[in-house]
């Protein structure tokens, strides 16, 4: 027995991929050319797996703000938000996010992971119950495991199953944290938030929604699935990230609960890490403003998502039921999925390869994410790369 024994399955998979000359996990981007193009593993590719939904990473105003902050405030804060790491920019961003979400309070974190994991690990504790969607992100699972609370899963996007779980809890349901996402990261499907809120209203508890993949995409103002479903008032805590639609890195939580301002001092992932660098805060603030000023980005994003979804569908690929900026192609055979990922790269399209247990089922996924910065021609080139793989029927035969 050795500490390393448990890693043997991982070691075997890695060796297998190396033998095949493919390394989809951690492919090196040698040169990034624009929000939608790069040289990856020596290939010039269209980027179709970056979560850069609004394409703001090279936005001149964002870059200029980051450069100015870098020159004026230095490369890092070198400290925790609770010590020397709270600069005026952090406070300004918290105020701007609270105003954007029309909520009273906001906390800014160093990463999205720190935000979701931090809230999920802190809000409920021993003696409390957390009921979370089975397909929740790893950061939420990590958080709830750390919480010490009793953890119950409900079937993915199944409000009736959630209700069953809360009913079984009886009076304890009032002491429960319900955890869901807005758009789910792997398949791009949306939570039925109106139904979930109805269940919450009947049984009590607090609701946390992770809108990491829906910020800037849905609702009149781009606040996410809760806004689109008209249930923002029933959401107790919204968490999200700056690393997708806002093109930087960092995370946030907004809420109308005044307790959030004290809770921040109980969140270990907020306290025991350095705060976001001034340049990151500066570009995020500009991106947040641009996202509000340019609703056309959202429109373009959905046009591109529809174009890619329709194109892949007509090629015969198995897709998730809902059109979304995350378009996931399901491939049953893992080895074929690896081969497809490699072929796509050689044909000029970078997508994400997702294998179990990271995928929600025993199938593998070629997960695409669309950007507002993609041109229709680029979407067509991604489709051409997929077309070169063959149809779903020929895949099944391989």
């Amino acid at each position, binding site marked *: 027995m050795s500490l390393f024994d448990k890693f043997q399955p991982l070691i075997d998979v890695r060796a297998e991929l190396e033998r095949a000359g493919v390394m989809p996990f951690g492919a090196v981007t040698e040169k990034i050319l624009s929000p939608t193009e790069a040289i990856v593993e020596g290939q010039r590719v269209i980027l179709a797996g970056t979560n850069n939904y609004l394409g703001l990473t090279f936005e001149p105003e964002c870059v200029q703000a980051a450069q100015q902050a870098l020159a004026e405030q230095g490369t890092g804060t070198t400290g925790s938000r609770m010590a020397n790491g709270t600069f005026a920019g952090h406070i300004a961003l918290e105020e701007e996010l609270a105003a954007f979400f029309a909520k009273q309070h906001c906390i800014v974190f160093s990463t999205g992971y720190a935000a979701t994991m931090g809230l999920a690990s802190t809000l409920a504790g021993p003696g409390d119950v957390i009921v979370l969607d*089975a397909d929740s992100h790893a950061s939420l699972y990590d958080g709830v*495991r750390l919480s010490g609370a*009793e*953890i*119950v*899963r409900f*079937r993915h996007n199944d409000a009736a199953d959630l209700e*069953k*779980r809360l009913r*079984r*809890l009886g009076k304890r349901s009032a002491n429960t944290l319900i955890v869901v996402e807005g758009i789910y990261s792997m398949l791009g499907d949306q939570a039925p938030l109106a139904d979930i809120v109805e269940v919450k209203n009947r049984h009590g508890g607090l609701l946390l929604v992770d809108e990491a993949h829906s910020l800037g995409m849905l609702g009149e103002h781009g606040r996410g699935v809760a806004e689109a479903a008209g249930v923002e008032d029933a959401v107790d805590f919204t968490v999200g990230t700056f690393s997708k639609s806002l093109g930087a890195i960092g995370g946030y939580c907004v809420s109308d609960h005044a307790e959030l301002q004290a809770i921040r001092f109980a969140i270990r992932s907020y306290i025991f890490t350095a705060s976001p660098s001034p340049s990151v805060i500066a570009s995020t603030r500009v991106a947040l403003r641009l996202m509000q000023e340019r609703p056309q980005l959202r429109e373009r994003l959905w046009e591109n998502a529809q174009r890619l979804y329709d194109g892949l569908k007509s090629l015969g690929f198995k897709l998730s039921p809902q059109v979304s900026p995350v378009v996931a192609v399901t491939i049953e055979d893992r080895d074929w999925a690896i081969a497809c990922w490699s072929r796509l790269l050689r044909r000029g399209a970078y997508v994400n390869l997702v294998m*179990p*247990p990271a995928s929600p*089922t*025993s199938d593998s996924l070629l997960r695409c994410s669309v950007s507002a910065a993609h041109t229709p021609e680029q979407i067509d080139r991604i489709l051409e790369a997929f077309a070169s793989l063959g149809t779903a029927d020929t895949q099944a035969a391989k």
Partner: protein
Amino acid sequence: MPDYDEFLERIFKILKPFTKPGVMLNKDSELVTQLGLTSLQVMELIEQLEDHFDISIPLNILPDIRTVHDLATQLERLEH
């Protein structure tokens, strides 16, 4: 309230289709190392038990479960 034997019987019933030919299924069978269940299949087993007995099985008990016996014991504890 179901007892240990009822839980055991139901677990055997659910596991039967998952069990590979030649693999003996008894209360000492280890779910992952002997029966070869994937993490998804373990969750499917849990969901089927939840539906059948109308209970919620907290994820917290999973680290303490290696065998069929462990699972039945933990379920009995939940109920009492």
